[in-house]
């Protein structure tokens, strides 16, 4: 496989499509590398754009006419992303893994000369133990574990600060007291105070606003306020990516 890669060192690709096509060509020539059915086997234009917009792939710094020019590093990174994805690693973790990697590191990663994911084994044994084959729960659990291990030190699961703040939210809303009347009396002329109609402290049942999630450049998912998105952005991105994949497979 590395010989095949060596031949591509000086090739340039104009535009996202050429890059995606080159990756596909390479993967077909190299033979089947993926065995799992969860990830699209070959990258296409849209997934490449998505990788770029989510910062997984760096965008090219060079343009020829309207088209971005990509090189060996881009191709190598794209191939590595695909490989790691096929290995079951979530996008957010792949991103951590690939940031600041040199070409040599990427080649090693891609060529499987080094193994990085001990979590992978944990995930496998979890799958076997629970009978989960491929569903979102398994992926999300492993993602949570990995992220927690990487970002937070092994501290108390629920901090005192959190408990305290939650207790503040539980408290019944305090009635307006004399103190606030006095302290704010000098503000009677301000625009804030002129808005006299007291708003209801609780949000009414009618949801007002919509949130926008970008699935891919030019494709957005709109969700109403009462929709609870996954708290974890990694999981959210995964959800969006799964939606994108479903669309791609059609």
């Amino acid at each position, binding site marked *: 496989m590395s010989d095949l890669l060596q031949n591509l060192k000086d090739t340039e690709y104009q535009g996202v499509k050429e890059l995606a096509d080159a990756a596909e060509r390479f993967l077909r020539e190299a033979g089947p590398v993926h065995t799992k059915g969860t990830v699209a086997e070959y990258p296409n234009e849209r997934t490449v754009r998505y990788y770029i917009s989510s910062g997984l792939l760096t965008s090219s710094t060079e343009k020829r006419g309207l088209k971005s020019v990509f090189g060996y590093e881009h191709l190598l990174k794209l191939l590595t992303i695909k490989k790691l994805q096929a290995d079951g690693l979530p996008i957010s973790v792949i991103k951590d893994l690939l940031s600041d990697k040199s070409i040599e590191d990427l080649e090693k990663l891609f060529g499987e000369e080094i193994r990085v994911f001990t979590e992978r084994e944990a995930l496998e044994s979890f799958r076997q133990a629970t009978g989960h084959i491929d569903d979102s729960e398994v992926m999300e659990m492993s993602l949570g574990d990995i992220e927690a291990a990487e970002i937070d030190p092994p501290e108390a699961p629920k901090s005192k600060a959190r408990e305290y703040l939650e207790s503040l939210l539980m408290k019944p*809303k305090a009635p307006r007291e004399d103190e606030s009347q006095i*302290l704010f009396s000098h503000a009677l002329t301000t625009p804030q105070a002129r808005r006299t109609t007291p708003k209801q402290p609780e949000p009414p049942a009618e949801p007002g606003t919509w949130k926008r999630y970008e699935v891919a450049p030019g494709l957005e998912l709109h969700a109403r306020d009462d929709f609870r998105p996954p708290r974890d952005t990694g999981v959210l991105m995964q959800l969006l990516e799964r939606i994108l994949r479903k669309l791609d497979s059609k």
Partner: protein
Amino acid sequence: MTHKKTTIEILTEKTLTANTDQTVDVLVRITPPQMDQTASKRPKLNLSMVLDRSGSMSGRKLEEAKEAAKYCVDQLLATDRISTVIFDDYIDVLIPSQPVENKDLLKRSINSIVANGSTALHEAWVRGGLQVSDHLNGASINRVLLITDGQANVGETRVSSIVTQAGELAAKGVTTSTIGIGEDFNEDLLMPMAEAGLGNAWHVQEPQDMVRIFETELQGLVSQIGHTVRLGIRPTAGVMVVDVLNDFETDGAGRYKLPNLRAGSPLEIVVRMSVPSHSVGDAALADFELSYVEQDSHVPISVTSLFSAKFDTAEVTASLASNPAVINAVQLLMNARARLEAIARMDRGDYVGMQHALISACEETDVAFSMAPSPELEREREELAELGEALKSRANDTFTRKHMAYSRESRRKGHNQ
């Protein structure tokens, strides 16, 4: 690894005069080490920006706040965490706490903010705190940045409760800084809230200053090298601490609570001492002990310095030149007090007394300037004169009050700009 230490310098205006009781102003200058630039070992940040999008923010204020928030995103590293809570009478966790990885996506979210509604300041602050506390990390700086132009008018609105809560939360590891915009916010809420919350209080006078303020806040965070900073003063027999001009609070052990230490940013503290008569020669007057917790290592650090003064005859000391640094520091702190007094008089409706406080501060600054000319004192003179002028017309009182309150605070904190 050699660790550079914080140093304590102790200065007096002159050699003390022998054989007489006297009151001496002692300048204690605490200089934290410079940050090691090569190691890029700045503390990780765990931030929540809690941004007011109530109706009054619409237009320039909100646009500039968004610019500042995006600027903030740009400055952070992938190892930092950020979240954004926006509020009017509804509270929306726009960006749940996450590593700062996809800056474009984060900035696009910030761009989508529009203004309407009123100000549920308290609950929004709590929600921001929750975002931070979910990922509380002892080695990080865990901070809520509350940005508002208004007053809490939905939910909990009692100033004392909110301030107490900010203190409680800080004790549990999440600090709070506040940024008040324009002239309608309540400085008597935002300043004590930041004080209790162990963060900084900022006043944005013009929307275009927003980015600069964010920059200063961030700079302060990334250069923070020590927290829980205390200064203990142990005078020798007969010597007494009469006053600490910075008006710092004390802890249970009588030690003064100082602002967090920032790399390369010295703290200037003036201690006024009464010193009994002493013959010509040297005498130890006090022991200063600075203690703090080092940011990256959590190690408690303590630096002690013995203040030993020289005494000489009146003839000799009269011929000596004064140390301008001491005159400077004393005057800036006295002016901070003058501003506080002016505010108190203004609140009581005593406008004559208010003017008087500012005028005498201005005159004292003139005298100090003639003895120790410095750009700081010159700026101070101009600012005090402008304040007096602005207050004559009484048209912009709420604004001037804020201006006085915030400039008093920055001087009092002893960070030599």
